[in-house]
């Protein structure tokens, strides 16, 4: 436990002196703000049009629509950002030779892995907290329902946890950050696009493809529905990622 904390602390410090992390944070917050603003104005414009033409017989849930589109867009932005948070986690250690330190001190592989994973998760939470400021406006001024928003964040958290574990694993495979980020991004993209392949498939194949899609499982969360099957999907994803990371680190020590 103490070792996990030590690794976590070091990793957090290195995030905060790293220009990459700041760039990711800034770009992410900028995009969140930008999309929030453009979604909001688009929705307001269309409701005003509806009202003008007298079609608005039922009231439009502006904050609800904005919230849903916002989470949808954010999940896509994260697709690009998450690989950058994990690319260096092990790749840099291998490149600088500090892996030799970690593997020859009493700190275990599992502790190293968890410390790093939790650090990346913490950084992701910081990013979410930053984006939450805009969302808070919906709650305060827009009388939005809090359930879909909380659900959306829970979904994004699980989604992020899954992708970070994948990125962590890929980071153990190379000592080059760029290769690590490109492979992670490519893999995530495939897992994302799988859904569009599924439209061509039929029967079981279609269900399987749909089930594998990382982003498909987010929809219910954004609607405010917390379904355990989606939670299980993301947690399994994260667990598999961490397990592969563990095996990869173990083979680093025992095969080389």
């Amino acid at each position: 436990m103490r070792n996990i904390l030590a690794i976590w602390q070091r990793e957090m410090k290195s995030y905060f002196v790293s220009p990459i992390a700041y760039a990711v944070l800034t770009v992410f917050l900028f995009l969140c703000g930008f999309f929030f603003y453009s979604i909001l104005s688009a929705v307001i414009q269309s409701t005003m049009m509806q009202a003008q033409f007298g079609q608005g017989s039922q009231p439009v849930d502006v904050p609800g629509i904005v919230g849903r589109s916002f989470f949808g867009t954010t999940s896509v932005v994260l697709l690009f950002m998450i690989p950058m948070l994990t690319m260096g986690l092990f790749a840099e250690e291998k490149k600088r030779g500090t892996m030799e330190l970690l593997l020859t001190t009493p700190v275990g592989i599992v502790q190293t892995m968890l410390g790093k994973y939790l650090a990346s998760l913490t950084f992701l939470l910081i990013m979410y907290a930053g984006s939450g400021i805009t969302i808070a406006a919906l709650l305060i001024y827009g009388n939005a329902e809090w359930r879909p928003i909380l659900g959306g964040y829970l979904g994004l958290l699980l989604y992020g946890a899954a992708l970070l574990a994948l990125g962590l694993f890929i980071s153990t495979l190379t000592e080059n950050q760029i290769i690590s980020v490109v492979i992670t991004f490519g893999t995530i993209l495939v897992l994302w696009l799988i859904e569009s392949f599924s439209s061509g498939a039929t029967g079981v194949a279609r269900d399987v493809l749909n089930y594998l899609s990382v982003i498909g499982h987010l929809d219910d969360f954004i609607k405010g529905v917390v379904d355990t099957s989606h939670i299980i999907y993301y947690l399994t994803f994260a667990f598999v990622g961490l397990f592969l990371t563990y095996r990869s680190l173990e083979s680093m020590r025992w095969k080389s």
Partner: protein
Amino acid sequence: MIEVEHLSKVYNGRRAVDDISFRVEKGEILGFLGPNGAGKTTTMRILTCYMPATEGTARVAGYDVFEESLEVRKRIGYMPESPPLYHEMTVYSYLDFVAKIKGTPSSKRKSHIDEVMQKTSIGDVRNRVIGRLSKGYKQRVGVAQALLNNPEVLVLDEPTIGLDPKQIFEVRSLIKSLAGSHTVILSTHILPEVSMTCSRVVIINKGKVVAMDTPEGLANQMKGAERVALLVDGPAPAVHEKLSSIDGVLGVSAEEGKNGQPSRFTVECKLNTDLRRTLAAAVVSQGWGLLELRGVSVSLEDVFINLITKE
């Protein structure tokens, strides 16, 4: 303290370490000497549990490096060939991190780090960012890191490389001062380093142990002949002939001086004979000028070159 038995390491079909065995007793400083690519780093990496051996066993403090790796890692301080440093950290926060993962209790950490920084003279850079330190300072931070948590066994891979002469001297004295309380194994290419710091030397070449002894023992063992060097002002061929004719002389090599300058001669004599008087008398009796005469002792350098060049 360290027992290595029939250790081999194969990288993609190439044997980097080939059936080496040696022991290091408690409190001893063992020098690991060998040319580039001899397999020093590979052996050290096996001893520190960084990589497994292909064949053979190694035990540190009684624990097998493969089976009981955690117990070994708790007792070892390792300074890899390239210091394992986080460049964005300050010296102090780096050492603090290493002390933490080595399990130094938080109450003792600060004073312990101060002590180690003092031993390696890096106190003046404690708040500097490691990435901006000079090579020598980085190297010293690497040594400091290995000393943290007072390990019983220290494995130092070329600890003095990149240091200035004063620091080389200080690090050597530091290592020497560890003798007795710590068991040290250090690798180096620098021969004087071995004779100055180590109580025993293992010379390896192409993955095999070619010699193992005390530094003095090695020098004696290699000594096949006594040598005398002379500087003589006289006709070189005549001097050569005269010296060769003396009883007990095995061979003479000459380095003729240019434009009538004095010539240098190295005379190989039978073991355990002192021919210096005879040689001096022979030269003087011919009316040549004897400008220099001294006995040459076999240096570790000769031993080394001799060992690694003979097939």
